[in-house]
């Protein structure tokens, strides 16, 4: 089982981002995704900076993938994807069918990211035929759902044609909107946001009137209030999952990657049991409410 570091979902200053990847390149991650996936106004790193960063990271012994935006509304946002597709060196994670279209026009292979609606083996088969090499399962799906799909792909004899990646640690990307909720939290409109996301490097917490932390506001994206953590579930991923994704929220995420690596390398009966705290969850994997703990 390999480990991946998902794209940074938050908006960090350029130097912080570069510093993060300088450390990430020496981490236990086998695959590093990078790029802006949430908002095209976030331009601390411009498209060519992301491509340059990806190429510089690609000189090391890790697989580098450029991730693309999930919600594509403007022609200019499609142009960014075209530029990313033309980088000529590293592969692309598509997070919208628009990106898949642009990639297939160029006959380029791709990773199907978690923001793409793929719920069954027939859909996977069609995507494999279009060039999909890896599938990141939608975060709301369970082990049972995955198991059923994988069984179908065996029956249809194409399980060996793609890898399965699972979002296994971090705040879950749950929704995308036209509205910027970070701007709204400061009583601003999106067009007048002042790029305020940069002031919240781990998003803004939204809680119920009983102080239950339900969402993390991250621009137009809404993340889960709790941190998803499947570190105790590795045994149940055997035969189903090829790659485990850690979604970074700070450099401490690199330690999380190492913890997962250590756990993977242990024999099943020697794996450490991690007690999840009250701000963590694992419900989706167990086919219950996402925010629950099994």
């Amino acid at each position, binding site marked *: 089982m390999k480990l991946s570091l998902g794209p940074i979902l938050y908006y960090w200053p350029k130097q912080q981002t570069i510093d993060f990847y300088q450390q990430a390149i020496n981490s236990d991650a086998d695959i590093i995704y990078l790029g802006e996936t949430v908002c095209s106004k976030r331009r601390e790193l411009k498209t060519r900076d992301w491509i340059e960063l990806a190429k510089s990271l690609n000189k090391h012994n890790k697989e580098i993938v450029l991730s693309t935006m*999930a919600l594509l509304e403007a022609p200019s946002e499609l142009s960014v994807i075209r530029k990313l597709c033309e980088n000529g060196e590293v592969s692309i994670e598509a997070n919208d069918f628009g990106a898949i279209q642009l990639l297939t026009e160029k006959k380029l292979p791709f990773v199907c990211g978690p923001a793409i609606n793929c719920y069954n083996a*027939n859909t996977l088969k069609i995507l494999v035929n279009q060039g999909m090499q890896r599938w990141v399962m*939608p975060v709301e799906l369970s082990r049972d759902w995955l198991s059923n799909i994988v069984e179908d792909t065996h029956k249809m004899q194409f399980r060996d044609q793609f890898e399965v990646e699972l979002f296994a640690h971090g705040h879950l990307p749950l929704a995308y909107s*036209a509205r910027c909720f970070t701007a709204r939290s400061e009583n601003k409109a999106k067009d007048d946001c002042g790029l305020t996301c940069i002031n919240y490097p781990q998003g803004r*917490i939204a809680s119920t009137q009983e102080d239950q932390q339900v969402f993390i506001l991250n621009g137009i994206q809404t993340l889960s209030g709790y941190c998803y953590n499947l570190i105790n579930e590795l045994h149940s991923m055997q035969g189903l999952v090829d790659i485990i994704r850690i979604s970074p929220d700070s450099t401490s995420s690199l330690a999380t990657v190492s913890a997962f690596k250590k756990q993977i390398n242990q024999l099943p009966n020697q794996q450490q049991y991690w007690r999840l705290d009250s701000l963590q969850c694992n419900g989706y994997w167990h086919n219950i*409410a996402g925010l629950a703990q099994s």
Partner: protein
Amino acid sequence: MELLCPAGSLPALKTAIDCGADAVYIGLKDQTNARHFAGLNFNASKLSKGAQYVADHNKHLHVAINTFAHPGQEKRWFNAVDQCVDLGANAAIIADISTLDYATQKYPDLALHLSVQASATNTAAIDFYQRNFNIKRVVLPRVLSLHQVKQLTRNSDMSLEVFAFGSLCIMAEGRCYLSSYFTGESPNTVGACSPAKFVRWQETAQGLTSRLNNILIDRYQDDEKAGYPTLCKGRFSVDNHLYHALEEPTSLNTLSLLPDLIEMGISSVKIEGRQRSPAYVEQITSVWRAAIDCYTQHPAHYQVKAQWNQQLANLSEGNQTTLGAYHRNWQ
């Protein structure tokens, strides 16, 4: 421009047709559609009666098959397509790739409309579905500004359908898992958002409270009107500031944009609300019929009548309406 109205039941369907809808959209009585609520939708006998009524009045019937096929149960979604064809429906509204593929292969003559749940918001995504599944129309998610909708009409030959009125989904449809995060059930997987079986109302010392799967959505003072606890419309606290962090209870109303939508060549305006009563369908259809006719007869003199807005506000969540994402300031 087509006026496309919701019908969650046979009486609603007849009302919509009688009040001037050009087309109605319906769903089967199972999880293949995104309004899978108890007591709603069409069984086999109601389906054929409904289809007959629509055909007798020379109107159009669209069948929503707009959830995502579960592994191992694809046949249920494929059967829904078969039923749609057997009925002689004019279009199937589909989101799932495997269901689109089945429909394209088996029924090349069936008009496929890409459901809003497929979340196609740009020309490249539209190209993907057109090239692979020969779709004939795209229902646009409620995330685009009016300018962005106009750009799409300029940059694509695809027939476009937009939401004109109804409950406002503020997230890109088909890409929102908030409901399953709270309850385990989402529009994509079971065809319902914030399902009613998880809703609980309680009178407390601090006022009436609404909960979804035991999570507090909102608390109402005596003078406040309580609404259905759709989870994105609750009051939440950010840094000790309590407000509707995502959106207020409100409905979309684009009567004032009707001239723009017609001028830019939008094919169809869709009214949300298959879960609503025939009385809702009657009022909503009548108002929109009057507005479209008013514009068609005298484009230069079109004005939204106060009476229309009043009628629509009364049918809206929280008795208020918004232009939603069409208006940039909302974003």
